[in-house]
């Protein structure tokens, strides 16, 4: 168990920059999830922590020790891969003990660790089987077992659940959460599944184009996204955005207008008349009503019914679409004009550069 700190980490392939000045500090025992769109550099960052790829610049410390030049096996990490990466020509037991043999763990100790990991992951029955005779979920458990027996300081997971079917994904997710509770180890976990990120993480790191956009607790990211990217990335369906402009300032409060919503009154010291803004409201925070802190109208075009909720896709006055969640059995009919309101804490305001504007809506 150890903390992990990454300072000014860069990765370039020729002229393309894959990671750009990444700084991240992870506490001992913390479960950190890296999320971001495909190609944003999550795997690259994880592989650099593992030592599988070299850095173009910057430092990585694990447990206070600079590991830049250390081989993967010397860094005190273990990694679980998306494709499981089990050795196909070794049975489960050998898969787990194989690495230990080369790091000088005596046989009795190897046996003890395998027995314990097998018990923890319910693999006892499978120890003599070969990977080809295992189901996807079992293979993933073996891969996790192989990581556990290394007794690493830091566990690294690269999309470990994405090859599993939906039901198995949920149960394995719970297992990983339990494992973390049991081992109290530091975990860095890459996923592009928001649910995984929200449910597992102590802290989420949102990445985009090789940069960290925001680091925070799951609900902090949800309720206070630092910028437009995080606001749009966290939450499903994504947050609705409305173009807006500051029309006037009176007594420290700004009147914000936009084509597609009724004038909004916010308190924001930093704003000036004429500032271009983006107002964001999550679909689940929009409810039917007459007038609220935020009010917008739209014509229903399509309703998706999921059971516990339905999503109405509405055409706004300015021609763009937005989404609102509708609870209950009564869903609006296509063609109907609906007025939706949101309470003031649920209205997010971003300035022209996309950064969150600290506001107090009324």
């Amino acid at each position, binding site marked *: 168990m150890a903390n992990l700190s990454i300072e000014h980490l860069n990765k370039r392939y020729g002229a393309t920059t894959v990671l750009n000045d990444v700084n991240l500090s992870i506490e001992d025992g913390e479960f950190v999830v890296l999320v971001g769109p495909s190609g944003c550099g999550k795997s690259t960052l994880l*592989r650099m922590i*593992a*030592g*599988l790829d070299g850095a173009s610049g910057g430092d990585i410390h694990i447990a206070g020790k600079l590991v830049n030049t250390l*081989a*993967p*096996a*010397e860094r005190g*990490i*273990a*990694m679980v*891969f*998306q*494709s499981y*990466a*089990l*050795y*196909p*020509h070794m049975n489960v037991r050998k898969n787990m003990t*194989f*690495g230990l043999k*080369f*790091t000088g763990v005596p046989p009795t100790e190897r046996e003890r660790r395998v027995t314990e990991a097998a018990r923890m992951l319910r693999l006892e029955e499978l120890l003599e089987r070969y990977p*080809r005779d295992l189901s996807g979920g079992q293979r993933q458990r073996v891969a996790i077992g*192989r990581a556990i027996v*290394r007794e690493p300081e830091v566990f690294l997971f690269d999309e470990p659940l994405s090859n599993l079917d939906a039901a198995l994904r949920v149960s394995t997710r719970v297992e990983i959460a339990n494992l973390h509770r049991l081992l109290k180890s530091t975990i860095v976990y890459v996923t592009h599944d928001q649910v995984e990120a929200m449910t597992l993480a102590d802290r989420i790191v949102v990445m985009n184009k090789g940069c960290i956009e925001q680091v925070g607790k799951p609900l902090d990211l949800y309720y206070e996204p630092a910028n437009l990217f995080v606001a749009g990335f966290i939450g499903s369906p994504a947050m609705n955005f409305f173009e807006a402009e500051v029309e006037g300032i009176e007594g420290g409060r700004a009147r914000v207008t936009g084509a597609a919503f009724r004038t909004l009154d916010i308190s924001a010291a930093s704003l000036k008349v004429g500032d271009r803004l983006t107002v964001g409201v999550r679909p689940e925070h929009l409810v039917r009503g007459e007038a609220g802190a935020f009010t917008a109208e739209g014509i229903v075009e399509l309703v998706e019914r999921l059971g516990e909720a339905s999503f109405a896709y509405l055409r706004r006055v300015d021609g763009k679409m937005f989404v609102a969640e509708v609870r209950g059995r009564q869903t609006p009919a296509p063609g109907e004009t609906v007025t939706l309101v949101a309470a003031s804490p649920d209205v997010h305001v971003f300035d022209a550069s996309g950064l969150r504007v600290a506001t107090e809506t009324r």
Partner: protein
Amino acid sequence: MAEPVSHVTAQMPRAKLAGLLLFFLGPAVVIYTLFSIYPLVATMALSTYTSDTSGARSFVGLANFQTLLGDALWSKPFWNALGNNLIFFVVHMCVQNPVGIALAGLLSLPGVRLKGFYRTVMFLPTMLSVVIVGFSWNLILSPLWGVASGALKAVGLGSLFAPWLGLESSALVTLSLISVWQFVGIPMMLIYAALLNIPEELIDAARVDGLGQFRIFFHIKLPLVLPTISLVSVLTFVANFNAFDLIYSVKGALAGPNFATDILGTFFYRTFFGNQLQLGNPTMGAAVATVMFFIILLGLCLYLFLVQRRIRRYAF
């Protein structure tokens, strides 16, 4: 008939199904029969005849084989050729395939520059005409004007030089090594392709497990390309026991010195077509060819039943 393969074929009128079978299988059957099965059967048939001085043929059963294996005049050169052929094969197995594997392993290492260049260069001799290969090596190793002795002298090893191709003790091994030089590209390419098939994440997992490139090769890569290596071995076996051209182009049909480089191919050639004072004997030649066929068949059967069954291909 067995279970219908599909509903489409099951519902087809018989005539139409037959037409379909003929259309898809016909060409292969015709070509295979014409150029493989017929010559094989004809050769075997021919080996049971003998021709007298007038050229008339008469059926003699297995007498030709009796002569070949029993009559010292025939059996001595035959066993000599077979023994030489075995040495030829052993040299290929012990040099060509390990070197091919090693080259493939090196090529598959991460961060090797100019991979494409090396690959092409090492594959180049395979594409050369065997006549050119034989001729060039004859020149290179010639004690009179070859560059080999000069090159050895230049590095102070002149005393090591010998007319390898001319000595009974070394001619066969030298020729085998020339053949190895020419064909090492084939095992290299096949194994390289198999190595590329191993997923990157598996190698990464081994690196996280603390293995260096050397151990990764021996503990992970090699076991996973074993099926390809065994395939390469079989191909080597078949090619070696059918070999002829290199010996012929370097040493001629007499496979000198004193038949030291005579292998089954050259032995067959002399028997069938004749050479200098030896008259061509097609029926005896057919007997030699038949024996060669059975030797290769035996080798393949041993491989199929003893090796192939134990080797497992891994799906990644």
